[in-house]
């Protein structure tokens, strides 16, 4: 779905009217864009201010730049370790989701076997299930497996993704069977066909799915909050939430911690915004 190449909806005949209406649309969108990013930029600069300056000055840029806030949350509050934990959890979950979603999507999209569509509908229907329903039994199970306070306890419940399977299946259905049959006649094994033909054709939806999954895993709050209890095992959002009670109104710590949580994903977003947006636009395909 390439938005840039689509033509505008209404062709206006009078250029003057076009300029006027296009101008007002630009003003509106510019205004919205500023509202969307202003809090981010404000807090980036605020994270370099001292507490005193943060609560007294109304200026956007710091008068005195300090790295003290970052120094303190990394060295005293373990944000460095939390960053590594977050990267581990999100990367493993993303890699696993990509692998499982593409393989399952391929099997459901290109193989035929009795009961295939019924089975897929059953799996798909679990998307309606609110997480709260499985929350308590899952916790009891994680306790039984000895995975409380372990990153593994967060990862294991996210190895498969129903949405990812659905998305990859939609895509795989568009791969021509003739192509796969030709490879079979040439004597290629199924694994080889999957890895050598199907996967290289699917890089675009895989990229969209991976940034989408990474973001979801990075921001995940409820489940890691329950599983990860000690500070050195926590992911960024959980540790960040802890600052609230640890540093009652020490806002310079809050801004620095927030930026540690937000900036890594933002860097990814700057380079791959196309895939983030494509991933979300694809949720619209569910209709």
């Amino acid at each position, binding site marked *: 779905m390439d*938005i*840039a190449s689509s*033509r*505008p*909806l*209404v*062709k206006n005949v009078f250029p003057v009217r076009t300029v006027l209406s*296009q101008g007002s*649309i630009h003003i509106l*969108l*510019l205004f919205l*864009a500023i509202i*969307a*990013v202003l*809090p981010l930029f404000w807090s980036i600069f605020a994270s370099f201010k001292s507490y005193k300056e943060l*609560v007294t000055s*109304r200026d956007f840029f710091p008068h005195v730049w300090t790295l003290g806030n970052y120094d303190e949350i990394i060295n005293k509050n373990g944000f460095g370790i939390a960053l590594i934990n977050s990267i581990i959890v999100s990367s493993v979950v993303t890699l696993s989701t990509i692998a499982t979603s593409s*393989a*399952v999507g391929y*099997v459901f999209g290109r193989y035929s076997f009795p009961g295939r569509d019924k089975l897929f509908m059953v*799996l798909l229907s679990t998307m*309606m*299930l*609110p*997480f*709260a*329903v*499985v929350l*308590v*039994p899952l916790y009891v*199970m994680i306790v039984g497996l000895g995975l409380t306070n372990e990153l593994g306890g967060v990862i*294991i419940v996210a190895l*498969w993704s129903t949405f990812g399977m659905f998305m990859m299946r939609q895509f795989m259905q568009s791969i021509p069977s003739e192509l796969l049959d030709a490879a079979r006649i040439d004597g290629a094994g*199924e694994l080889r066909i999957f890895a050598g033909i199907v996967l290289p054709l699917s890089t675009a939806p895989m990229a969209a799915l991976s940034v989408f999954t990474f*973001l979801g895993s990075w*921001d995940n*709050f*409820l489940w890691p909050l329950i599983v990860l209890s000690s500070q050195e095992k926590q992911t960024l*959002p959980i540790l*960040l*939430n802890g*600052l*609230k009670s640890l540093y009652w109104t020490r*806002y310079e710590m809050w*801004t620095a*911690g*927030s930026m540690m*949580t*937000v900036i890594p*994903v*933002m860097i990814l*977003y700057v380079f791959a915004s*196309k895939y*983030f*947006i494509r991933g*979300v*636009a694809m949720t*619209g395909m*569910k*209709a």
Partner: protein
Amino acid sequence: MATIQRVLPRQQNKEKRSDYRAAIKKTLRKPQFWFGLMVLGPTLIWYFLFLLLPMIRSAWMSVVAYQIMDASASQFVGLGNFQKLIENPLFAIAMRNTLTWAGMTFLLMLPSSLFVSTALSRVRVGRNLYQSIIFVPVVMSLVAIALLFRMLMDPQTGQFNQILDALGLPESKWISDESSALPVMVAIQVWKSLGTYVVILTAGLLNIPHELFEAATVDGANDRQMFWRMTLPLLGHTLTMITVMMFIDGVQAFTLPSVLTAGGPGTATFMGNMLIYQEAFSNLRFGTATAGAILQLILILFITRVLMKAITPKWSY
């Protein structure tokens, strides 16, 4: 004759059986079968262990007095957990807050995202750039956003009140006041996830063939008529889907209220999921917690059904 009649069905049976056997043998020889098994086997095991089994256990937990130390000793109590949950004064509060929250978010989010995506679909230069900037709050961690707004909305030192002061406007207590906390939280939620719905709706709008609008313009339709009579019905399925998405997300709100206000001030922003969390992990009452979760599932199924029925068929093409 008689012997033949007796022998014939037996032979047929034999043939059938050998047919099945041949078919199974043929299937087993297929490399697709083994690849499919290799993929679907672990998948089904995972779905069984991490979704189906927890679902069944959840249903069971909601009707027993769950013994944490010895689960098998739990006694059946029927609907006792549901009764206990509903009698909890926090239940009605959480229910009211959750529904108000979901409804208000929807009422603000749908028109704003439609408005913004209409503007985006009409702009000729820089559409992708605008869209990716408006999408930025979606990418920001919700916990960070909650802390950030909590700080900006501090009644004494927060930037929001400083701005109001500078403009000569009366200060607000924002999330520290019982009457404004929930609406302010709705506004933050809309700011945070507007980008998601804008992206979906813009993609939907751009999928409508523009010849349709040209034809309508030739026929003398004005902008408003085109919006209500063409754009909205043509977006029908997308609109139904995002409405359902908004309500499902709304009913499950947890992160924002627990980080931003912890349900307060008082119980002004206390939500259903927070009650479930509190029952399960603060009070260790697994029975009432799962009962709450099952009520939430029923609510979601009900809302989805009603919405699908109410808004799809009549006005969508």
